C-alpha cells in the first residue's frame, strides 16, 4: 500500500470537515474521490499534502508517518497537489513557471552539490532542464504558450499549467483538486488523455471532483464522501448506482 489514510479527522471549531475517514491507495491506480460541494474533499487533499494538520488520525506514506511534516517536505517525499483555483507565478512566462517547479528535480539530482553551481567555476546546474520543461509542456499541450506570461492564459490553460507544475515535481502520487472544473469539452478530453498518460507512466493519481461523468470514466476505484465521512467505496459504476450515494447527491426520495 502506497498511502494509508487511517481514521482521519479534521475539525474547524465546531465544524467537522473530515470525519473518521479511512482508505488506502495502491501504486499505479487512479482513485476518484466524489462528493457533493462542501463534503470535505478539498480538506482531505489539504490534510494529505500537509497544508492542514489533522485533529486526529494517521497518514502513512510508504510505511512512514506523514502527519506533522511540512508541505514542502511532503512534496519532496513525492506527494504533489494541484489547486482547485489555479495558483501560478502570474508575471512569469509559462516556461519560467515550470522551471521553478523543477526545484525538487534539481534537488534530487544534485543534492547539496547544487550550491557549488552558484560559483563561476562550475557549469550550470540544469543543463537538461529546458528539454525536460519542454517535454512537460508538450505533455500538457502548453507548448504553444511557452513564452506567454502565465497570467494571460485562459482558465483552462491555467489549470493545465497547474498540472504541468505538479508534473515537473515528478510526483509518485499526484493529488488533483477538481482538475476538470471550468474546462470546456476539448480541454476536458485533453486532461483525460494527460491523466491516462500519467497512469501509463506509473504515477498514482488521487482525483477529487463533484462531477460524476468525467471522473467516473477515468477512475479505477471510487470513494464517495458526504459530510466528511465515507459512504461508499468500490468500482465507479457500482458506487455511483449506490442508493446512499444518489441520496447524498440528489437528496432523499428523489432517486
Amino acid at each position, binding site marked *: 500500500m502506497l498511502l494509508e489514510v487511517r481514521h482521519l479527522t479534521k475539525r474547524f471549531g465546531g465544524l467537522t470537515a473530515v470525519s473518521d475517514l479511512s482508505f488506502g491507495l495502491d501504486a499505479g491506480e487512479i482513485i476518484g474521490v466524489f462528493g457533493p460541494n462542501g463534503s470535505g474533499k478539498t480538506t482531505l487533499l489539504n490534510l494529505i*499534502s500537509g497544508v492542514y494538520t489533522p485533529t486526529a488520525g494517521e497518514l502513512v506514506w510508504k510505511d512512514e508517518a506523514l502527519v506533522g511534516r511540512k508541505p*514542502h517536505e511532503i*512534496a519532496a517525499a513525492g506527494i*504533489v497537489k494541484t489547486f482547485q483555483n489555479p495558483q501560478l*507565478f*502570474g508575471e512569469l512566462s509559462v516556461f519560467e513557471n515550470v522551471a521553478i517547479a523543477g526545484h*525538487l528535480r534539481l534537488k534530487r539530482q544534485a543534492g547539496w552539490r547544487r550550491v557549488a*553551481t*552558484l560559483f563561476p567555476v562550475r557549469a550550470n546546474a540544469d543543463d537538461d532542464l529546458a528539454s525536460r520543461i519542454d517535454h512537460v509542456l508538450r505533455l500538457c499541450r502548453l507548448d504553444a504558450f511557452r513564452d506567454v506570461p502565465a497570467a494571460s492564459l485562459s482558465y483552462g490553460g491555467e489549470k493545465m499549467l497547474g498540472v504541468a507544475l505538479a508534473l515537473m*515535481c515528478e510526483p509518485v502520487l499526484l493529488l488533483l483538486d477538481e482538475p476538470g472544473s471550468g474546462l470546456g469539452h476539448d480541454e476536458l478530453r485533453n486532461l483525460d488523455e494527460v491523466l491516462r498518460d500519467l497512469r501509463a507512466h506509473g504515477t498514482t493519481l488521487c482525483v477529487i471532483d463533484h462531477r460524476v461523468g468525467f471522473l467516473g470514466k477515468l477512475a479505477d476505484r471510487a470513494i464517495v464522501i458526504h459530510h466528511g465521512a465515507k459512504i461508499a467505496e468500490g468500482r465507479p459504476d457500482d458506487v455511483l448506482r449506490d442508493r446512499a450515494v444518489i441520496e447524498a447527491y440528489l437528496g432523499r426520495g428523489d432517486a
Partner: protein
Amino acid sequence: MKFLLAIPLFFVPLAVHDNVVLTILIFTYLVGILAVSFNLIFGFTGQLSLFHAAAFGLSAYATYLSMVHLGVSFWVGALIGVLFVTLISIAIGAICFRFKLRELYFAIVTLAFSELIRLVILNWNSFTNGSLGINFTLTPTLWVPGRGVIPVAGTIMWYYLSLAAVVAAVFAYSRIVHSWMGRCFASIRLNDALADTLGINVFRYKLVSFVAGNIGAAVAGSLYSFYISYIDPNYFSLDQSLAIIAMALLGGREFVAAPIVGALVLTALPHVINVNAEARLLIYGLILILTILLMPRGIVGLLVRRRHAA
C-alpha cells in the same frame, strides 16, 4: 556581456581629475553595494527589510572595534564584521520567518531590531563612544604590485577599491539571481503558498536571501566607514533605511545593478542642488512618491524592456 559596461568606469580617473566628481562616484559605488544587496531581499525575494542600515552600521562598528581591541588588520576586521552580521541576520531572520511575518509586519519587526541595536550602541559609551561616534585613527592597508603594502589613502585608491567592490557585488548577486536559487526567491516573491507545495523550503530560502543581502550591507559598511573615517549611531537610523529603499525603487528593482543608478542620482543630487539636510529628506520623499506613481519600474525599467525575473 553586461559586465563590459563597467570597463569604462575603470578609466574615469584618467580622464576626470575633479575630486568632487570622483568622490561622488566613490560614494555611489559604496552606497550602491548597499542598495544592490538590499534589492536581493526586497526586489527579488519580496521582503521589505528595514534592517539593512543596521547591518551596514553594525559591520562598521565591528570592523573598527575588532581592529582596535584585537589588533587585527582591516581585512580581518571586515571579515569579523561580515561574520558578526551573518550571525545576527540568521538569528533575526529565523525569528521573523519562523513566525511567517508578512510584508509590513516583517518591516516593522526588522525595524524594531535595528532600533534595539542602535540603542545598545548609543548607550554603551565605554565601548562605542555613544552618540559622539568614533573618529577612526586606523586605515586599511592594501598590497599593491610594485609598491608593497601601503595604506589605502587618497581619492584614486579609494576609487579603484570601491569600484572593484561594487563590481564584485553585482557579479555575485547576479550569479545568485540568475540561478536555481534566484528561481526560489522569485517563487517566494510571487506566490509562497504555491512554492511550498512545489517542494521549495520557503523558510530556508527567505533566510538565505536575508543573510546574503545583509552580507553585502556588511561589506559596504566596513568600506564606507573607513572611507569617511567616522561612525556614529546615525548609521542605523530609519532615514538611512528609507534612502536605501528610495535607491532601489528609483533605479529599478527588477535588475541586479539598477539600484546603483538610484544611488548615483541620490548621491549626486545634494551636490547639484544645494539644500540643507531637512530639505534633502523632503526631496527624497518627493522623488520616492513620483517614482512609484510615474515609473514604478525605475529609471532602468524605463530604458529596458521587461524581462522576467527567474
